[in-house]
């Protein structure tokens, strides 16, 4: 009984290390695929449209809601100390350094990452990826690399949009509704936000963009090799759920690490 438990533990450990190695190799192949010819420009544009343009609405509403809540909450907290003039700094720094990149990444994971995982999972179980391999067509260059490039461009742009809409939402709640001085809102923002803060937010959004494609597409690509998810349509649904959870948790963990390293 005890021997069985030890064997199971060992087997799980080996499986986890194998999985990590496989995913590392997968990321490397995907990055290499970005430089292999012929470049699939049409597929890249399609992915840019899917990940970027398709996420505009959800990003807009999330940013507006987050900014307005920050404006209201910030006002009530700062009002206690008579520091309403700091509202612009508080809202903009929170959005640019933390909430913008993180919430954008979580929204993109939920909307585009899950779709990416399911699409590749279905292609895998219906032998479409094997068919590419058999035709000597590199599946990384053909399928995954355009997704990575599109995410590397669209996630930072969506984050920038999130920041702008969030700051506008904070302005509506703080200035228009609660009566904070508009000059102090924007002046506080101008004086407290540095290039380093913007750089930090941009680096995070790049890293998150890569992370989303890596985890979500990788889980779908390897659906046939992941232990414990079963087979067929059920394996795709389980792996898609796993991908969204893993990607979201990784974004949150990496957010802390990047802040700790880069701040």
């Amino acid at each position, binding site marked *: 009984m005890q021997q069985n438990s030890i*064997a*199971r533990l060992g*087997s799980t450990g080996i499986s986890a290390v194998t999985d990590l190695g496989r995913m590392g190799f997968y990321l490397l192949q995907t990055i290499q695929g970005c430089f292999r010819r*012929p470049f699939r420009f049409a597929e890249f544009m399609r992915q840019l449209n899917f990940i970027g343009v398709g996420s505009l609405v959800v990003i807009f509403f999330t940013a507006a809601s987050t900014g307005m809540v920050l404006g209201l909450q910030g006002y009530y907290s700062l009002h206690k100390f008579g520091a309403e003039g700091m509202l612009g700094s508080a809202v903009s720094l929170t959005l640019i350094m933390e909430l913008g990149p993180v919430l954008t990444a979580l929204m993109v994971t939920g909307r585009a990452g899950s779709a990416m995982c399911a699409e590749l999972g279905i*292609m895998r179980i*219906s*032998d*479409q990826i*094997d*068919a590419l*391999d*058999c*035709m*000597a*067509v590199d599946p990384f260059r*053909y399928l995954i690399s355009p997704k990575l490039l599109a995410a590397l461009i669209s996630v930072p742009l969506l984050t920038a949009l999130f920041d702008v809409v969030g700051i506008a939402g904070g302005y509506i709640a703080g200035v228009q509704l609660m009566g904070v001085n508009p000059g102090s809102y924007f002046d506080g923002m101008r004086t407290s936000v540095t290039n380093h803060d913007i750089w930090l937010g941009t680096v995070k959004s790049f890293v998150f963009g890569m992370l989303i494609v890596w985890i979500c597409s990788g889980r779908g690509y390897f659906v046939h090799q992941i*232990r*414990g998810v079963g087979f067929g349509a059920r394996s795709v649904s389980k792996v898609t759920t796993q991908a969204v959870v893993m990607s979201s948790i990784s974004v949150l963990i990496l957010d802390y690490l990047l802040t700790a390293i880069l701040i």
Partner: protein
Amino acid sequence: MSVNAIEFKDIEKAFVREDGGRQVILNKVSFTIPAGKTTVIAGGSGQGKSVTLKLVLGLMKADGGQIFVAGDDVTNARGNRLKELRTRFGVLFQGAALFDSMTVFDNVALPLRERTKKSEMEIKDQVMSSLEQLELYGHENKFPAQLSGGMKKRAGLARALQLKPEIMLFDEPTTGLDPVMTQEIYQLFARTQAQVGYTSIIVSHDIPKIFNLADQVIVLNNGDVDVFPSPEAIQWSQKPHIKAFVKTTMGTIYQSHLVEQ
């Protein structure tokens, strides 16, 4: 091309089960597949028929032994060598494996667009000519979901034949087809093989019908392999599992057919 299109030498393959145990699929098996002929690989479910095809294509690596394609050792082929190896093959998957977001035309044109430097006009001419030969003319703008099972197989075959392969691998090509369509597909295989001259390897459960196409039969059973130089030779085997295989899969129909011959 050498006399043997493919040679397996002491090939071993095992999988790790969910409970951590080891399941042996191929246990030091050796066989050859003659060039220009049709070899049928038969056996029960889970006996390693599809694994054998994946090993040939380099989609899976063997745990031991050597695989030769046209005399070249390709056991550990990687990168460009593996790519070059795969250009020799055409594969028709069980479900045809057409890209469901592409039209029939784009599916068939894919290998030409990706692997050749032909112009769009040349590609169009070649694809339309293939579709006409395989009776898919007029269906080129349909998506795979709009095709019947037989049409999907024909589209898959058209795609596989675009680069004029030396060896065609068919993975259970008639699964899910009615007897009439099955017969049509077999006739199509025979016709295209005569035109292109490829070596044909067919994994199939459709016994005894598939034996009408076979020059050689390989039966996989519990990790071992039995090779028969002709379909007729199977019934003379004294091995109990082959006798059981003949009885369950062919019954009296094929035996009486042999007696007639």
